[in-house]
């Protein structure tokens, strides 16, 4: 039996090869045929159902959970701690480390998991570095951990969004809110926020994408994927990962699409964070009220004590033990 | 490879056309790189080695307690250096073993009393392996140490020797001769003092031949020492000629 050992390109997140050992190149063609293709120039942003919840875990300071369509990601940020490796020290900046882990049930392909985790981790670190004020925790390191529960495309961009929320939740100073999104082009069709199936198609069936192009070399069939993370207050691009084969014009086109998606996502995340702050404020108020009530009760007792004197207070508080018979 | 393979032809020539006592062609150069304190490149036949020396500098980590000099070596072999691709450049048993041997041989040569509480890093990178890797690595390390200006008691050089079926000792054996199954003896020596700092042997031969084989290896060492010394002089002449002080005497 043939066994696939080729490592996946972790930029094209979705693929899980080992589950389908018997796929043939033709399956991809069939799938592509069955796919309802978007227009050549997408006008809609193709948003997915999004669910973001900051502060899902009580044991860590900063945590966030995000669902983006079927992609489910959990991010955890712990407060900065002292550098473990002195050699990693940088002149005037703290060190940021991102670790990505797949939940045991999230992937069927066990062989390449460790490598993918490392790749995603290093890419995530690169994306998060610009947003964190690293000058504020000199000689410290900040660890961000991401757990992937389910993977249906846009994995890295969802992880970036989730980490951004978790950072805010933890109270780490950041320069801006970071949002990210993915866009890809395959046989002249632009897919925004591609699903795992599309990403898999792009990666696994790259071989067939230019069957015609070899005969007529003048037209090159572009294919590729872009992940952009941006900070929109000053319209800064924090990271822009591209793979595949794109002409510069297409590259800029895809970049602009992702930037537009990022803007709309930013609105959403901002809303969520404001709500979270309000909620937290309410919680604080309630807690305050409760503690005020408790204070009040204690004060009453003290007041009583003062008025009655000690003996009387004790007498008044003695309750008869019902089990002891009075002689 | 058959173990009874004859290393010497009837005409008394070896597989690569050398005579039994002949060394392979040696080329070397000091100061190949800018960043290290000392560096050297050495080519012995087809075995090519780069060595770099950093230090002496303050000892790092937990090693600071001892009063002696710490000689820290690393032996690594490029993945494309051998005919069969290596998976890891270092960290396997062979390179750890060589690293220890390098440390052992070099600590005999370095004037350790001059460098208390300091550390000297010696990194060796084998670019192409064609037999006698350890010996060439050690020779390159010696040159790099000289380039770094670290005080040595004397040149420390290594040479390999083998014994053919007809009991004729062979100097400086190549990879092909190594795998043909003859014995291999590696000697690291301080040739002027006639001291042996390190000796390793694989396979077997009768003890009667030990002395001749060691003497062959020592002769090889002396010859290499002369070549290295010439290279160092050449290098210094070249370095110093800008100020023209090297030609004074």
């Amino acid at each position, binding site marked *: 039996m043939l066994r696939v050992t080729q490592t996946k390109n972790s930029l094209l997140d979705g693929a899980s090869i080992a589950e389908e050992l018997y796929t043939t190149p033709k399956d991809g063609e069939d799938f592509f045929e069955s796919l309802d293709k978007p227009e050549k120039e997408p006008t809609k942003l193709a948003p997915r159902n999004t669910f973001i919840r900051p502060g899902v875990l009580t044991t860590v300071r900063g945590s966030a959970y995000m669902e983006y369509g079927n992609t489910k990601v959990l991010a955890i940020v712990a407060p900065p701690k002292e550098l473990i490796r002195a050699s990693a020290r940088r002149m005037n900046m703290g060190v940021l480390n991102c670790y990505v882990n797949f939940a045991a049930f999230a992937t069927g392909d066990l062989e390449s998991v460790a490598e993918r985790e490392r790749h995603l981790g290093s890419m995530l670190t690169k994306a998060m570095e610009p947003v964190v004020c690293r000058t504020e925790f000199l000689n410290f390191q900040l660890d961000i951990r991401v757990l992937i529960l389910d993977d249906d495309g846009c994995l890295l961009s969802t992880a970036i969004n989730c980490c951004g929320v978790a950072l805010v939740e933890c109270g780490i100073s950041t320069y801006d809110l970071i949002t990210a999104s993915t866009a890809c082009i395959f046989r002249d069709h632009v897919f925004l926020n591609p699903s795992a199936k599309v990403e898999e198609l792009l990666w696994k069936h790259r*071989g067939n994408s230019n069957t015609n192009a070899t005969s007529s070399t003048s037209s090159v069939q572009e294919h590729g994927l872009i992940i952009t993370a941006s900070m929109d207050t000053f319209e800064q691009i924090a990271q822009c990962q591209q793979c595949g084969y794109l*002409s*510069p014009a297409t590259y800029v086109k895809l970049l602009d699409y992702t930037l537009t998606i990022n803007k709309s996502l930013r609105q959403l995340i901002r809303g969520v964070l404001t709500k979270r702050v309000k909620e937290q404020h309410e919680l604080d108020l309630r807690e305050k009220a409760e503690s005020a009530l408790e204070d009040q009760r204690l004060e009453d007792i003290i007041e009583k004590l003062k008025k009655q004197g000690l003996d009387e207070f004790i007498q008044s508080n003695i309750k008869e033990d019902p089990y002891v018979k009075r002689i | 490879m058959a173990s009874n393979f004859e290393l010497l032809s009837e005409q008394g020539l070896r597989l690569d056309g050398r005579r039994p006592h002949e060394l392979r062609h040696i080329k070397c150069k000091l100061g190949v790189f800018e960043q290290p304190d000392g560096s050297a490149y050495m080519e012995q036949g087809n075995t090519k080695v780069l060595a770099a020396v950093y230090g002496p500098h303050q000892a790092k980590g937990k090693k600071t307690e001892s009063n002696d000099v710490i000689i820290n070596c*690393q032996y690594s072999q490029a993945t494309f250096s051998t005919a069969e*691709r290596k998976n890891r450049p270092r960290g396997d048993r062979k390179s750890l073993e060589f690293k220890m041997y390098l440390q052992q041989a070099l600590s005999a040569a370095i004037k350790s009393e001059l460098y208390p509480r300091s550390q000297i890093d010696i990194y060796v990178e084998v670019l*192409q392996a064609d037999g006698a890797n350890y010996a060439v690595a050690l020779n390159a390390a010696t040159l790099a140490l000289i380039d770094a200006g670290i005080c040595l008691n004397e040149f420390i050089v290594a040479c390999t020797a083998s014994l053919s079926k007809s009991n004729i000792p062979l100097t400086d054996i190549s990879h092909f001769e190594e795998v043909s199954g003859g014995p291999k003896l590696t000697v690291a020596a301080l040739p002027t003092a006639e001291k042996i700092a390190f000796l390793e042997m694989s396979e077997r031969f009768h003890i009667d031949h030990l002395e001749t084989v060691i003497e062959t290896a020592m002769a090889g060492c002396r010859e290499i020492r002369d070549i290295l010394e010439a290279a160092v002089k050449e290098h210094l002449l070249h370095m110093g000629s800008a100020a023209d002080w090297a030609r004074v005497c």
Partner: protein
Amino acid sequence: MAYVALSEAEKTYILHGVEDDFRCDGRSRRDYRPMELETGLVSNASGSARLRLANTDILVGVKTEIDVPNPLTPEFGKLEFFVDCSANATPEFEGRGGSDLAQELVLSLQNAYESPLAFDYRTLCLIPGQQCWKLYIDILILECGGNLHDAVSLAAKAALFNTKLPRVTATLLDAGITDLIISDNPYDCTRIGIETVPLLVTVCKIGDYCLVDPSAEEEVCSTVSVVVSVSMRNGEPFLSGTHLTGGGAMHRDTMRNCLQLGLSIGEHLDKLLTKMLKLEQERVGPKRPKTVGFLK
């Protein structure tokens, strides 16, 4: 990364130099440092190249192996990159110290070579679906003097150009089993087309300006750089894997400018490299070359 400590004054000096388009070593913002390139100097590898870009020293060896192709891409061969940061470059790389940097470089290269349009995997095919070549591109970093991405990609391309695959003929045996006969004649070999093989160009942003080929000192001053992977196809540049690095952010328009700069430099660099490789090939000729190596 080999880390260079710079004082504020030194940084300001470099910054001002960049602003005046006159860098510390006299270059303009679009200039490269001098390069030395030699191919075919490792005899144990199928192809090799050594590139020295000022103080950056890279040695690349290409090894070949016969493997089974991926069933999804039966006509494709395989490539594998491996980067080793030698401790010769800096003591920080001792043991596993260089693995982070090595991984970053491997990722960039893998990403750039991933598209079949960038590297023609079909030339590595022997029998579709059954046998293919697997190339190991082993990169050894001997000295770090800045701009590793560019140097590594240039050296890798040169090594691929130098790679000779022995000619293979297949004979069909019973039951559809094929037998490969690999030619013994070292001159009977095929080469790999490198026209579209991508080059990485690091465009570094210092102050308000973008420049190429940063030295180690300039890398410390830069906030962010774009690694542009340029692949030339039919005389037009294409992007085959681009990313930001350095821990900073940039505006979209700056990004576009960087891309433009990277593409034009990449185009030029590619032309020059191809020209030099042709010259080198003529110099070497069909005979066994006399290599210079590190003995210069």
